[in-house]
């Protein structure tokens, strides 16, 4: 018997809901172009662009990849992977800046 249906939760989100997420992603794309290209945030454009990118990535993760329906195992593993990457980058920068 082949069964992939997850009985613990019903994550069959509606198509309209996905369309709304898509519209939000395109709106954020336009915002990131405004922030990055036209220097709307002056010296903070790098931080602004990367923050918007993180919001976009979050929307894709939570809604398109159904992270909100995943259990603690997947969420914990994701946190571990992102934290590992963060520490690798942070420690490298400590070396680069204070060498």
């Amino acid at each position, binding site marked *: 018997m*082949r069964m992939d249906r997850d009985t613990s939760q019903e994550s069959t989100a509606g198509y309209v809901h996905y369309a709304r997420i898509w519209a939000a992603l395109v709106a954020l794309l336009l915002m990131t172009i405004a922030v990055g290209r036209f220097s709307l945030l002056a010296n903070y454009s790098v931080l602004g662009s990367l923050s*918007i*990118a993180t919001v976009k*990535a979050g929307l894709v993760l939570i809604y398109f990849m159904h992270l909100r329906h995943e*259990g603690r195992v997947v969420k914990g*593993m994701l946190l571990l992977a*992102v934290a590992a990457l963060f520490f690798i980058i942070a420690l490298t920068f400590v070396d680069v800046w204070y060498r």
Partner: protein
Amino acid sequence: MAMGKKSNTGAAASAEAQGGIDYTGKKIGMWLFLFTELLFFGGMFLLYSVFRSQYPVEFHAAAQEENLLLGSINTTVLLTSSFTIAVAIAAIRKGSKVLSLYMQTATIIFGICFLIIKYFEWSAKIAKGIYPDSPALLDRGKGDNLFFGLYYVMTGIHGIHVLIGIIVIAIMFVYTRRGVIDRDSFAKLENTGLYWHFVDIVWIYLFPLFYLIT
């Protein structure tokens, strides 16, 4: 020996019967693979960050040479393809095989569009003499060489991921048509979707780093 075999079969049958255990295992396997991909791309993002901090002026000037219009169109194309694959999975879960097939086809077309636009972008740069180790680029100093070197490596490896995604979605299309993927058995398509969304997320970060941060 016979006893062991029997008990293994029993355990497998029990897992199958519960469905959920098998499903969770398939999903966790895919997420684990995506974490290795995250760290793989992470290494390249690390290189970009360090070199950008060392050559801010050169990276600033080089990023302005990128074609923002084509980059923006490609971002929209990839975001839309993420939407279509998400709908394809939701559709198969609801039992709408035809809609799922249409959405999988749309995702493949968007993926091909992305690669065609990328081809035109790369061609325009190569025509200007900007490619790794080119005489024109070698005359321009370290910062420019690092920026365009990272541009070709990162967008190139991302492009290979898009190509692999297109091939895998095409295989899923065949599986869906044959009924291997249906409303009761869709983990293959869902995992393909996870991969495709991950490739989209990588581009979400590549776009501002190469086209916008000036």
